[in-house]
């Protein structure tokens, strides 16, 4: 008993500790919170030097874009509901109602449905309901906070950010699918083989993981640009130029991602007792059947976690996509870099901010739904050293 009491912190220490934790949360969230606020204001408000003006947006309000108390309440309610659904209901629903093999499909469908649903609710349903209700509730229906979505319209409709979004989607989907299918096979093989060769492959993968990506791109560029020449003997007339092709970038990102993927999957496979394979083998399965029918169904948490990290790599990549894709096939992150290099007026700046928030929103959503998987992924490789 005395030990437990001694482990408990005295009050002053606990207060300081919690105060510092609150400070850390503020530092962690502030830059992201701030660009989100800025993206909804007119340029004058977004770059006001008084923080309160940025948050309340008097200039935006004066232009007739505003939110009433009622709208704020509705909006907060919608966000709260999204968080609640994303962090509690969706994970338990998917885990409860789907069996192993189809769970990943459940995650994808559930997460995208929730994502689209919350965008529709925030930008479609809330304004619609409040337009109807605002005149009825008197003082609560008067606009108090300036807020406009015009910059999002500029980014997504006029600047063609939607095409960049599609490209990002294509590339991340390709990278996640291929790198998981290739990686699970290799991870399983490496986890179950104690041979010297397996050890050396892991070591070499570790070295590959440390390589700067620009080194690799320096190797791809000349080959990709001239690929229609050296592929001609195989493909004849229609030999493709690999430069600027999404599938070439997918292949490159999968390969760059492989070292990390196989290390992580291997550590997840090692947690599954080898007796399970042996039992399946005794029952007459081949190695591959044991892998497919016995191991994979219990492996889904590890696969989902690794998939998340593959997604992050492909989604966040700037260097490879900006050098290997041309303007038409550009993904979101390099596109925004072009956008802020061009920024000349403050309107352009706020538009770039809105684009940045658009890129961050899916990631924010991802953390809400998959917090537990991300944490387990971060600690999986580490705790064993």
């Amino acid at each position, binding site marked *: 008993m005395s030990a437990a009491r001694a482990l408990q912190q005295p009050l002053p220490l606990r207060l300081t500790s919690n105060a510092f934790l609150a400070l850390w949360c503020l530092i962690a969230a502030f830059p992201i919170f701030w660009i989100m606020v800025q993206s909804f204001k007119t340029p004058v408000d977004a770059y006001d030097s008084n923080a309160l003006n940025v948050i309340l947006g008097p200039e935006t309000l004066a232009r007739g874009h505003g939110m009433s108390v009622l709208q704020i309440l509705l909006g907060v309610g919608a966000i709260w509901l999204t968080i609640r659904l994303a962090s509690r209901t969706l994970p338990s629903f998917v885990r409860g109602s789907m069996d192993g093999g189809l769970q990943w499909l459940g995650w994808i469908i559930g997460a995208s449905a929730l994502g689209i649903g919350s965008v529709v609710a925030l930008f479609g349903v809330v304004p619609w309901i409040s337009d109807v209700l605002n005149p009825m509730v008197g003082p609560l229906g008067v606009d108090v906070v300036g807020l406009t979505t015009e910059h999002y319209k500029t980014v997504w409709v006029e600047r063609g950010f939607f095409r960049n979004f599609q490209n990002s989607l294509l590339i991340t989907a390709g990278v996640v699918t291929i790198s998981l299918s290739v990686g699970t096979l290799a991870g399983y093989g490496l986890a179950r083989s104690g041979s010297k060769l397996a050890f050396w492959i892991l070591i070499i993968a570790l070295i590959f993981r440390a390589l700067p990506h620009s080194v690799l791109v320096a190797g791809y560029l000349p080959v990709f640009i001239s690929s229609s020449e050296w592929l001609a003997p195989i493909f004849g007339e229609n030999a493709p130029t690999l430069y600027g092709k999404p599938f070439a970038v997918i292949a490159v990102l999968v390969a760059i991602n492989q070292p990390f993927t196989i290390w992580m999957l291997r550590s997840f496979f090692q947690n599954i007792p080898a007796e399970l394979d042996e039992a399946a083998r005794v029952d007459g399965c081949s190695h591959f059947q044991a892998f497919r029918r016995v191991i994979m169904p219990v492996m889904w948490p590890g696969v989902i976690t690794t998939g998340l990290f593959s997604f992050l790599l492909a989604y966040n990549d700037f*260097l490879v996509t900006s050098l290997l894709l041309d303007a038409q096939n550009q993904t979101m992150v390099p596109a925004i870099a072009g956008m802020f290099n061009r920024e000349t007026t403050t309107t352009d700046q706020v538009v770039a901010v809105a684009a940045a928030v658009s890129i961050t929103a899916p990631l924010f959503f991802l953390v809400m739904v998959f917090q537990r998987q991300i944490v387990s992924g971060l600690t999986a490789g*580490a705790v064993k050293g």
Partner: protein
Amino acid sequence: MKFKTFAAFIGPSVFMMLLFIAFPLVSVFQQSFYITQPIYDLVEVETCTPGFLTQTCVTETQSVPKLDEEGAIITQTEFVGLQSYRNVLELGRAWDAVSSGSWAAFQAIDFWKALRFTLSFTLITLPLVIGAGLAIAVMINSAAKSVRGPVIFISLLPFIITPVIGALAINWLFRGDGILTAAMEWYLQRDIAMFAQAWTIEILMMFYRVWHVAPFAAIVFYAGLQTVNQDSLESAIIDGASRWQRLKYIVIPHLMPLIVFISMIHLMDSYRVFEEIVGFSSQGHVISLQWLTYDFLVPDQAGNRSISRASASAMLTMIGIALLLVPLLRRTWRDHQGGH
């Protein structure tokens, strides 16, 4: 597992790594000794402009790239030995600067400027990341159970955000009269320009990196804290150890493998510093080694990419990676020997 089954399982992955990692590496090594250029011809060009009474004609020799029948520029590749390395290192200029004792002249050379920043960035952020990560982990661990989930959620945001966007978000807080620059100006009662000199940009970049990586360190350490042996903590209390002593003699030694792990990952990642340069658009003041290679690869106004110089600077970057990897590989090798 028989070798054949093993090979079937790992085959696709190994093939991809060979094709897209090992092969480019070899080809970059080779490219760094060759240079591909258009063949130029010296042509006498007579340009005439209409003048009063007679035309004014000027004859000058220009070097014009040779074209083949289809009008494409003919290029030739020749072996130049270490020339590209010399172009990147600019040893002559560097030596002059060093012997005349001028640090500014030395830092005017791109490669050495990039090397200086990359090394100082890596070494300064390392202790900050470990320290901040440990502090956050200990604080989360001592917080009430109900706030841990939300705190971890918020902590994950800086880690998961796209690096370029994260750097931009911090950049925008300080750029021009950004909200934090305005706050500092109000507090200090003087003008502040955060992006007019190199050292303020470097501080912002390091702050961004610590902000971005500390959550990762914190979560790994937090997981490690859950496995601290409670018995030894209790016996330490009975022996009268203070809170600080318990942290120093029990918790930190327990976390040591994780600290080494995080340090290794952080060294590898921060040596590749690149996104900060893009996000803070600092290329006028501060550049890094990886950005140097990137810059050679981006086409210039004439549309040419200096592939051979990029290869040379990539190879020089690799030397640093090799030095970083030696201790890590030795450790892994020792563990492997010990494990069997």
